[in-house]
């Protein structure tokens, strides 16, 4: 039983504290599944993963086993992967193309529009048995924004478009990298566990304060490769280029900084090799022609980590990564991460993109394993010490009026405030 509030939020007193119980109490996780994951829009997958009729992928979304598929008319569907008869999963492959989903337990089968099309020995059922009511169950709401598909289990929730609020601007910046306005998920999914509460990865995924201490070996690698990672002079600056933290509404937030680390579209760095230089420059020219000088510069030369509440990160930096995570237990999450690139990208540039991805991200990258270690160390540090050390401090930047840096903590507070509203039902009056 949690007696203290989840957060203490008092900007007038320059105070913001987080109750560590929120990261260790299994009862809070139960409540989160109900009040957060069952009411918000949750990322399910990308358009490009099922491009032709009959294509499907299976995965777990918001804890549920689902089948994401293109039906016979090319419509996107998200079915719960459970037979209407006695419950077994009707599709066990990771991905493929099919006209039928078949339950091997008693032999019921469904077409890819979800209709129940075969029931062995159906003459034993009473007259009231109605196949048309026993199709695969679709999720209540399934909507997309620019190819990113989300599910919502609350029928009365606002539309995805409304929900995304200011996050749309940042998705637009990702999609604008593609001449055709179409991005695709690259083959090669990264699925790994982190033995930590899921909310610690929300914080970590756009916490630029930790870059210098946690990722010094990565900065060293960049420096060795000829990238300028010197910290400029200026109050509070901790990173090679200036950046800001932003509240995007509805709990979404972003950090947004001038590029220093190189971008496949379209800011060349020495690590890409001389051969790639002209290709990156051509990508930049294409952006300028299509979007104009100012917008092209925004797309090509800023790094943005977008957090879509409650569990999607789209990090658009050295490469674009789409990352989502699910709390299997209060102290263990399952992470799924993909690389995203323009559909029309040349093989040469795709190679550069994937290479750039791996220098930082993923379970074999030069940075992500240290993040995983950090989060595990937090969980171990707090698990049995909450009585003696009940609060975490999250006040960086809180005394400022106006713009907050990416190494401040406004964006983290934005997440926690929305989380607190959903968990308690109390809308906060405090604004920052």
């Amino acid at each position: 039983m949690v007696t203290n509030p989840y957060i203490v939020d008092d900007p007038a007193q320059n105070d913001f504290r987080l109750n560590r119980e929120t990261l260790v109490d299994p009862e809070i996780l139960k409540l989160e599944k109900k009040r957060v994951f069952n009411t918000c829009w949750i990322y399910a997958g990308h358009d490009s993963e099922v491009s032709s009729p009959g294509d499907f992928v299976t995965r777990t979304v918001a804890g549920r086993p689902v089948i994401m598929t293109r039906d016979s008319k090319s419509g996107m569907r998200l079915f719960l992967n459970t037979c209407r008869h006695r419950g077994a999963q009707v599709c066990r492959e990771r991905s493929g193309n099919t006209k039928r989903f078949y339950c091997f337990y008693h032999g019921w089968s469904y077409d890819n529009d979800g209709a129940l099309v075969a029931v062995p020995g159906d003459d034993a059922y009473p007259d009231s048995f109605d196949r048309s009511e026993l199709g695969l169950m679709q999720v209540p709401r399934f909507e997309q924004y620019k190819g990113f598909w989300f599910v919502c289990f609350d029928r009365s929730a606002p539309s995805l478009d409304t929900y995304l609020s200011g996050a749309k601007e940042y998705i637009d910046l990702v999609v604008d990298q593609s001449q055709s306005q179409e991005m695709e998920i690259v083959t090669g999914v990264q699925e790994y566990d982190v033995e930590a509460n899921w909310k610690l990865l929300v914080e970590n995924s756009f916490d630029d304060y930790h870059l210098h201490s946690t990722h010094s070996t990565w900065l060293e690698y960049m420096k060795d490769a000829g990238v300028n990672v010197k910290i400029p002079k200026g109050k509070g600056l901790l990173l090679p280029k200036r950046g800001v933290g932003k509240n995007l509404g509805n709990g979404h937030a972003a950090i947004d900084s001038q590029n220093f680390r190189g971008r496949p579209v379209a800011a060349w760095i020495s690590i890409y090799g001389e051969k790639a230089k002209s290709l990156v420059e051509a990508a930049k020219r294409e952006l300028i022609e299509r979007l104009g000088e100012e917008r092209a510069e925004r797309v090509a030369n800023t790094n943005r980590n977008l957090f879509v509440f409650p569990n999607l990160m789209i990090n658009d930096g050295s490469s674009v990564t789409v990352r989502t995570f699910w709390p299997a237990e209060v102290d263990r999450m399952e992470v799924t991460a993909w690389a995203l690139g323009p559909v029309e990208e040349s093989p040469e540039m795709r190679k550069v993109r994937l290479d750039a991805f791996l220098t930082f991200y993923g379970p074999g990258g030069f940075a992500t394993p240290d993040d995983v270690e950090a989060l595990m160390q937090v969980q171990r540090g707090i698990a049995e010490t909450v009585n003696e050390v009940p609060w975490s401090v999250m006040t960086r930047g809180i005394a400022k009026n106006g713009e907050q840096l990416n190494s401040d903590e406004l964006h983290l507070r934005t997440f926690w405030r929305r989380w607190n509203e959903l968990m308690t039902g109390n809308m906060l009056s405090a604004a920052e």
Partner: protein
Amino acid sequence: MIMQKGDDERSAVEDFLYHEAAILDDWDLDAWLDLMCDDAIYLVPPNEAPESDPEDTLFIIADDIHRIRSRVKRLKSPDAHAEYPPSRTRRLITNIRILKSSERELTVTSNFSVHRFRRGGKGGVYIGRYVHRLQRVASGFRIAERRVILDAEELGALGAVSFIL
């Protein structure tokens, strides 16, 4: 017992793979770099697509020789937090087979289980197979390509590949 040419070659390859395993378990990473060709590559493909190509597929690790050297430099630093203090590892290598053999190089596959131990318990067992492409040199062999194929359907509880697998 009559020794065939093939037995000699396989013994030499076995010795080489056992030597590589020993220096990795000892964290003698500079000695490991000395086993590499100047254009060596080190690959860990994604669990879902073990036979794929790093040019069009997102791998877990796809290092050219420059990044192999950078990886070693990083792992020798106390700031490589995921590997500080360094994991204890023990590699068991079996089922060694020479798949291809020419005057210049050999392709060798072997099965491995790599046991990892960390203080406080977070370790794991990595099971899979190596495919080594070895170049013949005067002193024996050098590694041209080292592909580490994991059998698990996903990395899952193993969490990361933060040491040299």
